[in-house]
């Protein structure tokens, strides 16, 4: 599984770079996208095994929209999503889509910023191992 392809979706190029260094150092293949549209283009051209998604891209909603979009699509809903948040969930934004019928954010796991290399690698490995 070391050769897995990971897509990082984050509008902060420095954070993307940090995660890229950590992940590439472990032998993963890393793609990156700065917003939702770019991410969809990337996913369509090279299907990732895991998506690391920043919840606070440009607009608050974008991270939500992308994750919900992907989880609705039968072709992509199997791809695990690791959500990166700048603030601990409870104190952060309300994890509820505006007019949503579901009151949860459809992601597999969360990760706090600043990214701790070991925690990142652990979570990535755990998510990739899941069937």
């Amino acid at each position, binding site marked *: 599984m070391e050769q897995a392809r990971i897509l990082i979706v984050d509008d902060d190029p420095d*954070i993307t770079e940090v995660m890229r*260094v950590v992940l590439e*150092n472990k032998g993963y293949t890393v793609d990156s996208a700065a917003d939702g549209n770019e991410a969809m283009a990337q996913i369509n051209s090279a299907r990732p095994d895991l998506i690391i998604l920043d919840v606070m891209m440009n607009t608050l909603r974008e991270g939500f929209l992308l994750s919900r979009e992907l989880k609705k699509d039968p072709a992509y809903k199997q791809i695990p999503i690791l959500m990166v948040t*700048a*603030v601990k969930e409870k*104190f952060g934004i309300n994890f509820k889509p505006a007019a949503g019928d579901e009151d949860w954010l459809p992601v597999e796991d969360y990760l706090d910023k*600043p990214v701790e290399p*070991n925690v990142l690698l652990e979570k990535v490995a755990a998510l990739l191992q899941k069937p």
Partner: protein
Amino acid sequence: METLLETTNLVKRAYWLVRLRWLAIAVLAAGTFVAGRFLKIQLPAPMLYLIAAGVLVYNFLLFDLLRYFTWGGKSASHKTIGRIITFQICGDLFILTAILHYSGGIENPFFLYFVFHMVLGSVFLTARQSYLHATLAVFLFGGLIVLEYLEVINHYALTGFATGVLYHSGLFVFGTLFVFSTTLYLVVYMTTSISTQLKKQQQEYERANIQLSQKDHLKNEYVLRLTHDIRGHLAAIQSCLNIVGDTIAGALNERQTDLINRACRRTAKCMAFVTALLKLTRMKLSGTVEMSYFSIKSPIFNALAVAETRAAMKSINISCEIQPSVDEVYGEPVLIEEAIANLLFNAVRYTPEKGTVRLCAKDQPDCVLLEVSDTGIGIPENELTNIFEEFYRASNAKKVERDGTGLGLSIARQVVQRHGGRIWARNNQDGGSTFSITLPKISQETPKKQDNF
């Protein structure tokens, strides 16, 4: 033009009018009795008692009407209550006129009581309505005395009090009416001009208040955005430093490792500060917190677990004592855990090595009392309340720990206040300090009245 009183106040005033009327009825009945029995004034007593009884029934109906509109926290509109009040105020003029008719008309000096009605009216009515109110009074009383003068209606003489001829003197009747009307209009003019001024002032205060809270809100939003941005930059710096420190990006020599570690520590402190500020501001900006019933034990144990690792580094012993009956409270568990953890962290931070920190949870009739006591440096007596202010750090605390956000206790206070609890600190007799918080066991949210205007 708005009237002086807001709806809730208006309701209170409406009830006040009803209460005043109970008093008036009692005074009318008692007065009739005393005048007839002791002062030997001849009165058509049965008629006056009948009026008292009629007003009694009328007042009961009004009371019921008010209760119907405001029952069980149901809120009647400003308009409805306003109408009821206007109706009462006008009705009272008729009642007073009727009473005067059966008790001597112009010869009864109680006609001066019309002035009270004018004063009362100008509190509830707009200026224009107050003048109409005065006009109604002039017509009613004027009609009464003129009709009695013309002998269209019967004059009940107050034999034993007045001579009983004055009502028949044209000069006296019209002179009195002139003074009476000018008095009423002047009273209305004076009271309305005062109440108009009061209304204006009140509106200005309200406007200033709204502006202040809007400014505060804006300020908080600004702080939120700013801290959020700063936190983003810090997170990036820290992430970069982390991977350099972890030698993922290549090996470092000893000197470099040391410098990187220093940078990491400082960034972490900065991060802690910004995070605390962010939490506090978020809490202030968020309107409501979702609350539920839960056992206070789990936040206590979670907070203890985190504090214990810090305490272990300083060989501080943390003990915990929870009364067996302590269990459910009403609130938001994560916030409460945060508040408890902040108290424990502080206790550990300002307690010298090998000291002790104790957490007690006591069951009280309607709340749970949590006490965190330590054997630390204590708090200067004159700073016991200041320490909960934002950014405030006790003078002796600054000496022990140079860095500190001064926000931990503010967050704890914000959380506790949100829950309708209390927080306070005191010094122990044998050194150290004790922080106490109370958390309600049952929901404090009474079904609030919704103002619908």
